[in-house]
């Protein structure tokens, strides 16, 4: 366990983005210190030079000067525009994530952070990430880094990692993603930055950046699902179990007269809806289709699917279902209508297993 770096003057710089951010921060600082210095010099200088000498001091009647006013309008404006342009590019860097970046899922909940690694390993209030350190000859990182996707189980939270200079609101009902390229090993704060109620200040966590070797060995030490059958524990595998447990397959199956649309090979495609619009089959669509199925019914199908609220399917489970649906390639078979969820390990074996 590493101690959190104890500096309260300059925060640690632990990601590719943080370095760029700090450059920009100090650029703005330099400009505004310069601007403020002009104002303060005027105030101090005039206060000193033109302090009242006698009650009858005469003052010149100066009504303004267009030339001077244009100067102090245009110069700040140009600087402000430069802030805008660089700022937009910087923001873009945080939200444009390489498509091959492995996806970590974060679910905020009053007042804890639930994390799930791409291979299904879960943590609470802690997140271990591998470092990005492969560079090409010019020193540019060649790794994609990691993608963090988050949503909330209840109110709006905000996932902030000051050492990465990164932050984004975690909003219930939608997914928001950012990319990280951690460059410095260490342990850093995770803060909830959006006020979320009583335990807001306790909704904190630790983010550990580990070397690749340490990351792998850390994962080896993580408790895996036990059982006779080898399980891969991945989100898609968990999702398949859930698919069976919730009996999604009683309608979403391979039979010719299935009562619900086929799901294999759909992810990423556009499909027509009952209302005539085309909808991309993406994470948000899957999410809405489970939480509130009648809102976007696929063309030609009846509105028979029940809604699954957060008490039946929590955010991580929903994410795993999505991962399962996403993993179904075209032509792949959904489970048969009669397939049942495997009994939990250790459950008593019944004489007539399976059918009622």
């Amino acid at each position, binding site marked *: 366990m590493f101690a959190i770096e104890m500096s*309260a003057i300059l925060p640690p710089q632990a990601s590719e983005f943080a370095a760029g951010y700090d450059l920009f921060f100090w650029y703005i600082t330099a400009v505004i210190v310069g601007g403020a210095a002009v104002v303060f010099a005027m105030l101090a200088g005039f*206060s000193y030079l033109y302090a009242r000498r006698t009650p009858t001091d005469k003052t010149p009647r100066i009504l303004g000067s267009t030339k001077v006013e244009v100067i102090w*309008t245009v110069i700040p404006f140009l600087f402000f525009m430069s*802030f805008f342009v660089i700022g937009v590019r910087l923001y873009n860097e945080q939200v444009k994530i390489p498509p091959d970046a492995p996806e970590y899922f974060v679910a905020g909940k009053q007042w804890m952070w639930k994390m799930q690694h791409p291979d299904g390993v879960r943590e609470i209030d802690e997140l271990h990430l591998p470092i990005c350190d492969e560079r090409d000859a010019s020193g540019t990182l060649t790794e994609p880094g990691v993608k963090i996707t988050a949503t909330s189980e209840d109110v709006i939270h905000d996932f902030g990692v000051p050492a990465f200079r990164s932050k984004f609101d975690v*909003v219930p009902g939608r997914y928001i993603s950012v990319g990280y390229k951690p460059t410095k090993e260490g342990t850093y704060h995770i803060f909830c*930055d959006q006020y979320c109620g009583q335990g807001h200040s306790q909704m904190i966590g630790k983010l550990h950046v580990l070397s690749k070797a340490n990351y792998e060995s850390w994962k080896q030490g993580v408790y895996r699902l036990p059982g006779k059958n080898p399980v891969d524990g991945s989100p898609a595998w968990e999702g398949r179990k859930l698919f069976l447990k919730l009996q999604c397959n009683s309608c979403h199956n391979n039979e010719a007269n299935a009562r619900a649309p086929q799901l294999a090979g759909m992810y990423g495609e556009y499909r027509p809806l009952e209302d005539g619009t085309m909808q991309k089959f993406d994470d948000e669509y899957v999410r809405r289709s489970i939480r509130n199925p009648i809102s976007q019914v696929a063309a030609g199908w009846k509105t028979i699917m029940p809604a699954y609220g957060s008490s039946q399917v929590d955010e991580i489970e929903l994410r795993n279902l999505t991962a399962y649906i996403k993993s179904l390639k075209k032509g792949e078979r959904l489970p048969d209508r009669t397939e049942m969820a495997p009994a939990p390990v250790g459950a008593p074996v019944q004489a007539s297993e399976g059918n009622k």
Partner: protein
Amino acid sequence: MTTKVPYLHYTPQSIPTPELPPEQEKKRKHYLNHDYGILSWLLTVDHKRIGLMYLVTASVFFLFGGLAVMLVRLNLIVPTGAILELDQYNKAFTAHGTIMIFLFLIPVIPGVLGNFLVPLMVGAKDMAFPKLNLLSYYVWISGALFFVWQLTVGGLDTGWTLYPPYSSKYSHTNVLYAGLGIFITGFASILTAMNIIATVHKMRCPGMTWSRLPLFIWAMYATSLIQLLSTPVLAVTVILLATEKLTGIGIFDPALDGDPILFQHMFWFYSHPAVYIMILPGMGVISEVITCFSRKNIFGYKAVAWSSVGIAVVGFLVWGHHMFLAGQGYYLGMLFSILTMLVAVPSAIKVFNWAGTMYKGSISFEAPMLYTIGFLVLFTIGGTTGLYLGVMGSDIHLHDTYFVIAHFHFTMVGGMLMAWMAGLHFWWPKMTGKMYSDFWSRLAAVVTIVGFIMTFMPQFVLGFNGMPRRYPNYAPEFQFLNILSSAGASIQGIGYVMPLFYLTASLFTGRKAGSNPWQATGLEWQTPSPPPMHNFDATPVVYFPPYEYALPNGLGMLADAGITPGSNPALEPAFAPAAGQHEVSHGS
């Protein structure tokens, strides 16, 4: 001789303002002594008395809000929280925010100085709708009572921003009462704004053209436009929130198929312009004070006046910069960011123009001027640090941290509150007829400003290090800066309590101020202090633009205007250079 020109607007300083002999002055009836008794105050339609009623009530709320933040700052001395439970802390900072914003910052300058000064400055006998004016005070008070009541029955813990779904579903505190309070005080805002707009349009005295309006009036006018147009949106938002809470109809809660970001859009559509509602009147005050104490014309009247209007208009289009990280989308964010850069320009212009006004002046440093210089220094810091937050890239790290807290306190307290103190000290002699202690008032100004800087400078560093706002408990490495900040807050607190004493004392022991203690040019200074019941004994006539402090010889200027000493200008409105544009004074 020259005293026969009693109400010549912007009398250059060489013309003394008429003073009555002491024995007559004692018997003179003015707005404070023409009638006594509690009902003569509670049922008054006199804009000056209503202004004073606002002064007393807003000051009480300011003290309440200050007490709440004392708890907050005390608690933050220790990383694990010194005195409060988590819930208590959340309620304390919410009480601080809601009281300071809805019951102090928004109403105080329009309510006190706006009410008191707008008719005086435009040369009218009263507001356009005196009874509506009284009504708006009572509407405001009844809204405020909901806040006070909800505090006594358990408080509110949502923060002043009331974001759903926390406020609509998860908070078990008095969201509805507070919402009702916001809704009702909003109507008071709207009524006051209407009244001021109507007064500025229809009640200006002869010769008071738009280009001769004092900049305080321009600022109040721009403020009123914002209030009139944006406050209804807040009312709608609060109603929708209450609807969701009471009936379970999904509007903002995603579990009910609502959209929480919609609330933020609607909320900030009001609440961003609201920061201009708070700061613009303060900017108006600064223009009045800095010209008077530098004895100079304002540098660039048109730029200062139009930048108020520019801020009011563009300020409506920047609300989304509160939501860069809330999932509003990249291109929308870009639009809001560039508009935010645009709205920063007029503020920069104003600051430079005020500083430019001091150039070659004859500057004296009584309390109003010290507060004004404090304003210029602190508002410059507050305004420029806002740039970090209005730029998409730099906002990522600073969003919702103490950097934001420091920034908006620099604008709201360092800007608006300093301006309010400057204005209060500037016009106190006019309101009460008494001068306060010069020494204590200067000391209070210095103490306040020093305490302020010590409180909020460390918070910039805390924010850059990532300390989130609204945290009763925090990481131990932030403790030193928090202690520094709390220490500064207590110094600042002393600075705010001091005026309570010396201003109150001045009512009893202060020397007579006379009609124009600062030798200022505004119309309000051309009538005795305290002003008579109907402000002016005769309808004033205006011949000059404002702030003619530099004229070497007022009489020469008068001769140019075709008026000689002894002639009565009140009978010669045709001599006003801009005759034809003027309005006839109300009921004269």
